[in-house]
């Protein structure tokens, strides 16, 4: 991936084109009596224009080094670790309804701590159970938020 944002520019050009095309399927109207599709159509065309200028002038504009946004730095670490991290979150979200909030959160915390390299199971169990317990008390008991309880709620 390049930090100059060229792949992003291409994606934005496509996004603008798709927006414009979908807007044309709606009633566009006139500027005097604008229809539902007019404003998004203008935005789609504007995004296409900006993305085109960006892609064309990319070489002329000084490349933005990762000087301001700390996040723009190239992560030297493993993408595998990040994908595992993301995968665990996706799995926990899928299991949130059937397993319930306490169990899925507990499992998620255990998995994330392990993926990031903490191998002491006792420590992980303690962190996961205390965090889940406190969150359960705050959100379910105190704020009365109806978090899914899954098997535990039956």
């Amino acid at each position: 991936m390049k930090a100059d944002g060229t792949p992003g520019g291409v994606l934005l050009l496509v996004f603008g084109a798709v927006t414009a095309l979908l807007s044309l399927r709606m009633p566009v109207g006139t500027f005097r009596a604008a229809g539902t599709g007019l404003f998004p159509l203008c935005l789609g065309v504007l995004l296409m224009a900006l993305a085109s200028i960006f892609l064309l002038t990319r070489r002329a504009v000084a490349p933005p080094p990762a000087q301001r946004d700390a996040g723009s730095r190239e992560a030297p670490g493993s993408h595998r670790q990040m994908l595992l991290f993301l995968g665990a979150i996706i799995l926990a979200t899928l299991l949130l309804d059937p397993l319930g909030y306490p169990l899925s959160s507990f499992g998620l915390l255990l998995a994330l701590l392990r993926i990031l390299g903490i191998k002491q199971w006792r420590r992980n169990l303690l962190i996961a159970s205390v965090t889940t317990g406190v969150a359960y008390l705050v959100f379910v008991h105190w704020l009365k938020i109806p978090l899914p309880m899954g098997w535990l709620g039956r």
Partner: protein
Amino acid sequence: MLESLQYLIGGFSLATTTQNLAYCLIGAIVGTLIGVLPGLGPIAGIALLIPATFGLNPTSALIMLAGIYYGAMYGGSTTSILMNVPGETASVITCIDGYQMAQQGRAGPALAISAIGSFIGGTISILGLTFLAPPLAEAALAFGPAEFFSLMVFGFVVLSNVTGTSLLKALMMAVVGLILGTVGLDPVTGNERFTFGSTYLLGGVEFVAVAIGVFGIGEILVNAANPAELLERRVRVPRFRELYPSLQDLKRSMGSILRGTGVGFGVGLVPGPAPVIATYASYMVEKRLSKRPEEFGKGAIQGVAGPETANNSATQSAFIPLFVLGIPFGPVTAILLGALLIHGVTPGPLLIGEHPQLFWAVIASMYIGNFILLLLNLPFVPLFANILRAPKKILLPLVMFICITGMYSVNNSILDIWLMLGFGVLGYLMRRWAYEGAPLLLALVLGPKMEVAFRQSLMISHGDFGVFLRRPISLILLLATLVFLLIPVLRALFRPWRKRAVSEV
């Protein structure tokens, strides 16, 4: 003015009863907690707690609800500074420099200056609310749809200019935010747009999901890709005397705090999500006026002091149009209007005459509430700053867990979590490709209002775009926009010439 002072003294005698002091304290504490928890913003917080005020008299109820509102504005900065997760929308801009300060072991000064700025901004703004309410509210009425549209265009261009390194990239992000803002029901005709038959999208793209996703999850994913030794590394632990701002910090921040107060107060009188716009406007002003603008984005204390002051100042002055005109200019004041109506009080020009006790007691309670918040927040600075002692490999899973729980609690919807994760991946890519998140978020909030202003202006002018140029305020704003658009172009044109001149010297 003397009359206002007399009424204010009467208001203080009512606001300082044990019962009202207790409600003010409860409001401030609950508001701070709501602000700290990602996902639960002042809108959700006040909406959840309105039923709890049913048994109270209108004055106590409003004192508590107003306390929740400005308490949330105080608390919202905490997670922005410590975790790069905005507790509520007005804290998005605080992430930029606040989080960088925390990464450099300066979370304490960032949190403290944010509390001090909020106190000063809030208190001066209440003074304005006390004495200038009626005449200022009338001036705000001069803004029609054309002026609003031009103001928002100006805001986007200015914001794109001050955040990030590429104007084009920032402008593209703003347009993406505007497009996302069109998802849902057309605000004029009520037709569906980009919902693809989903009832979930009828209400539009959930702002909180985008905010937590782009800022919080994106940052977490970037960090999760780091190798073990980087995840083990802790943020430099500050010594006790480093937990609070130094004299130099205070000196550097004072101008920003005073300017932030002025910016926030002015923006609070204008329709729209005032605290959000105020933070962006203040950040822009600070970066422009700074002798070292290159420090912004890398942990400049002025980048925290100005916006945090401005959002609290705007929060207080936004009560002026609500009380004096009965028109809520933002979503939170709209909910407060609903709460007032439930309690049998109709805000408007007659409010001060018909319910003077309520009006002045609430104003007086705001002075007290601001002082309570300062007392509450400053002692907690070491506690919050010490959260960063934990290594990232423990912090990241905990923040992720808080994000998921907070996100679910907004609408009790798992779909919101999916949306947040989707925007998290987008936020990750945006960081890798050096695209800014702030313009996207501001555009998402202001998009629907901008569209309505655009369409109303053209409807009134029968499709004539000259309407934006014929109205003086609108014309000035558009000319200022043009200047901001030309600045980077001129800079790029003059750069080779300046380099040559320097090398010749």
